[in-house]
């Protein structure tokens, strides 16, 4: 179909170079550098207020940076107004115009481009077919369900065959069940169209399930860019480790004794730091709950063993989650549940066994 061929041909990369943006005294974006490859499904992930929406709106031309530039397909578009950028944006509220029918909404961008009427009709029909809404062309937006409105918003944007598609929390106005379905549809549509797509979300599950790569943002700074697996396995800092999935973070001091280094957990055991693993003075020990094992033991913790008392237990079905007091802190360990095996009781002493390659030493 026409749209697929055109979007695939037009798909462009996005480069953000050294962008700084402030509102008055608030520094919202701090030295942002970023590259989104052509055809990639990319996410800006972070808590609210981290600057992800601001960055998206900057690419669309609704915000203007104090310094730096934005390039699309190699062209600097920093000084272009929103209407000359050719980046399609789907708004969080969908922003469907209530005074126009679905078809008129979708036709709007084409009319603004002075495209002949017969071609507009053909392309509107094709775009609505793409989102399976061609039978609702003459309805008003208010007569559609939330999911349908979202699809109209997508159709209205892709019909202009943009160079880049921007999605601002497009799933946040849908209920939980619709969200799972729509995010899958979005992924399939993006794959068919081959469109470079940037997706803003605060939900790590959304980002993990549909995006090729993710930029994790916090406090106006890009913390790390990578595939979902990279971010999970090799978080660059404590924020990324804590934001993507559960992580145990233990405070302590890095002690050096010649070539051998050790991590002295505050109020607890001392662990040798595996050779070749980076760790600076401000580092903390980080590991995922499911990467440790629990071994029943009788004696209180000494030396290099992480030994402590089980203080809480939750049965989750596939796994059992234990909370273990280690010195002054508490860690969570998830153990697969094996039918017939006995669970460890609250109050029992255990050793938390952690393979050296499962340890990470990260700082903020």
């Amino acid at each position: 179909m026409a749209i697929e061929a055109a979007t695939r041909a037009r798909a462009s990369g996005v480069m953000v170079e050294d962008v700084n943006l402030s509102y008055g005294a608030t520094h919202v974006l701090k030295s942002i550098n970023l590259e989104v490859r052509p055809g990639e499904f990319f996410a800006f992930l972070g808590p609210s207020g981290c600057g992800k929406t601001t960055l998206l709106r900057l690419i669309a031309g609704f915000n203007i940076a104090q310094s730096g530039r934005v390039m699309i397909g190699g062209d600097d578009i920093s000084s272009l107004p929103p209407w000359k950028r050719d980046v399609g944006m789907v708004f969080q509220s969908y922003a469907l115009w209530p005074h126009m029918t679905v078809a008129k909404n979708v036709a709007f961008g084409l009319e603004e481009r002075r495209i002949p009427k017969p071609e507009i009709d053909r392309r509107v029909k094709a775009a609505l077919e793409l989102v399976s809404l061609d039978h609702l062309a003459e309805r008003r937006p208010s007569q559609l369900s939330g999911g349908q409105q979202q699809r109209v918003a997508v159709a209205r944007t892709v019909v202009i065959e943009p160079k880049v598609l921007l999605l601002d929390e497009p799933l946040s106005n849908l209920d939980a069940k619709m969200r799972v379905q729509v995010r899958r549809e979005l992924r399939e549509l993006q794959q068919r169209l081959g469109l470079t797509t940037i997706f803003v979300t605060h939900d790590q599950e959304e980002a993990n399930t549909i995006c090729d790569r993710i930029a994790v943002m916090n406090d106006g700074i890009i913390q790390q860019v990578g595939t979902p697996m990279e971010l999970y396995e090799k978080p660059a800092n404590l924020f990324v480790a804590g934001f993507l999935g559960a992580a145990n973070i233990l405070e302590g001091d890095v002690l050096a004794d010649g070539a051998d280094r050790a991590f002295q957990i505050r109020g607890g055991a001392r662990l040798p730091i595996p050779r070749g693993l980076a760790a600076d003075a401000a580092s903390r020990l980080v590991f995922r709950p499911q990467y440790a094992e629990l071994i029943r033991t009788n004696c209180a913790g000494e030396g290099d063993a992480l030994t402590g008392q089980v203080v809480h237990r939750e049965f989750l079905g596939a796994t059992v989650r234990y909370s273990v007091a280690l010195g002054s802190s508490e860690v969570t360990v998830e153990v697969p549940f094996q039918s017939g095996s006995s669970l460890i009781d609250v109050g029992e002493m255990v050793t938390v066994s952690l393979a050296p390659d499962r340890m990470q030493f990260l700082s903020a």
Partner: protein
Amino acid sequence: MGAISSQLVATRGQSIPISQYLVAGAVALFLVLFLVIPVATVIIVAFIDPRAGGFTLVNFADFFRNDLFMRSFGNSVYVSAMAVAWGTVFALPLAYITSRFQFRGAVLIQTLGVVPLIMPPFAGAVAMQLLFGRNGSFNLILGDWFDINVPFMEGLNGVILLQAIHYFPFILLNVSASLANIDRAMEESAQNLGSSGFRLFSKIVFPLAMPGYVAGASLVFIKVFDDLATPLLLNVKDMLAPQAYLRITSIGLSDPMGYVISVVLIVVSMLAMWIATMATRGRDYATVQRGGGGLAKREMKGLDKIIAYAVVFLILALTLAPHVGLILLSLATVWSFSPVPDGYTLTHYGKVFTESPLFIWNTLLYATLAGVISVIIGSAIAWLVQRTKIPGRQILDYLAMGALAVPGVVIGIGYLRTYYGVTLPSGQSLATFWFMIVIALAVRRLPYALRACTAGLQQVSPQLEEAAENLGATKARTVRKILLPLMAGGMLAGFVTAFATASVELSATMMLVQNTSDAPLAYGLYVYMQSPAGRGPGAALGMIAVVIVGLCTYLSHWLLDRERSGTVKH
């Protein structure tokens, strides 16, 4: 995220385009020429010694030493306060019963409750004399049956009754809107804790509706305090606004007392607005629940139901009485010392249409132009305030709203004083040129138009405009294709309010009409009503005004409903 993004819209772009300065400049020029300078002139003249020139407080001393003026001042305050009190008595039962109980004909009552607004209060004055005056229908019947005579219309009572009947819809509308915005769980939890009936109303419902009530009541107070035509028609001259008019028209533009009274009128109006703002500050109780199923209306039983229907019927009968009286008067051959007219005829309407169709055309022309001007200025200000970062935009908003506190008499006097010396190429004075009446009406109606346009614009999410820009529409085309169509409802509402109220306005007009051929309907009505023989044609003219305003109001509701049925709320 919504709050953030709307904030971003205003900050987008670093420099302000020249077009925004042009719009702001034009609006500012209009306000300065036709509001600021005339009002400032009035205030300054009040402080100038009429003989020696130079600053003086003598004029004010004269004002406060003059018994007539002090009595007028007291009367104006008394009449305004009593009109608010009676307006409250009329409005609260209607608002509460129709919004909280299952009541047959609730929509009809809400509609009929607003009808008095669309009749100029002075138009009903003569009709009310015939119905409730010393020898009116009501007292004739009371006299026959019980041999008593109730002085409904004697002196200040007549002004109070007419004003209360005319302006109580302001309280009704505001309180109804407040009630509609209160989460029903507020009342349900009070009921759950054992409250009901009048205690529920006085302890929960009314306090929650207080902001709406205060807004409505202060508006009624100001309107009554500033009104000129109603007391004059009832031949009550010892009130402030009529005194200002009489001084200027009988003694002349140079007499300082008219200006002093104007300053007093402005100060009291602003004081009333300030008190209302203070009283409601931080008390916005609009608490509509998310996804709520609308308001649950309670069931009334037995005696309660009978009392409620009786109360509603009595109030509506009283408030619609001027209309009934006016219809009868316009059709009556002779109506004097009898409960109903002696006979009926259509000759009054014929007389009006043959003798003075000009009044009607003038009214339509003036009110249309005034409505258009106030909507253009109003939507420009709303747009500047909400969608641009231009410095001083808030000042334009305050200035335009400030017109609320400026009585029509003051505008009239201000225009005469400021522009009397300015002559047109034809040799006519600018102050007496008919277009100045249009301008005066537009300035007077600007606050209503501005509020309607602001509300209309607020309902348009900035994202709707951003979506258009994102898809390739320039700012100008976005305004035309997205913003204007979506704001149209608000602008239309603003136009109709401005049109309807401008077509029955008389305060500023009375000062500015110098030539009967330039006079609008309201002025013609006033002239007719001066003589007993003119009452019939005057009433016919009044009925025409009622029909014009009523039709327009209906039309706007119809248009708004049609519009609303096709919109989504964002």
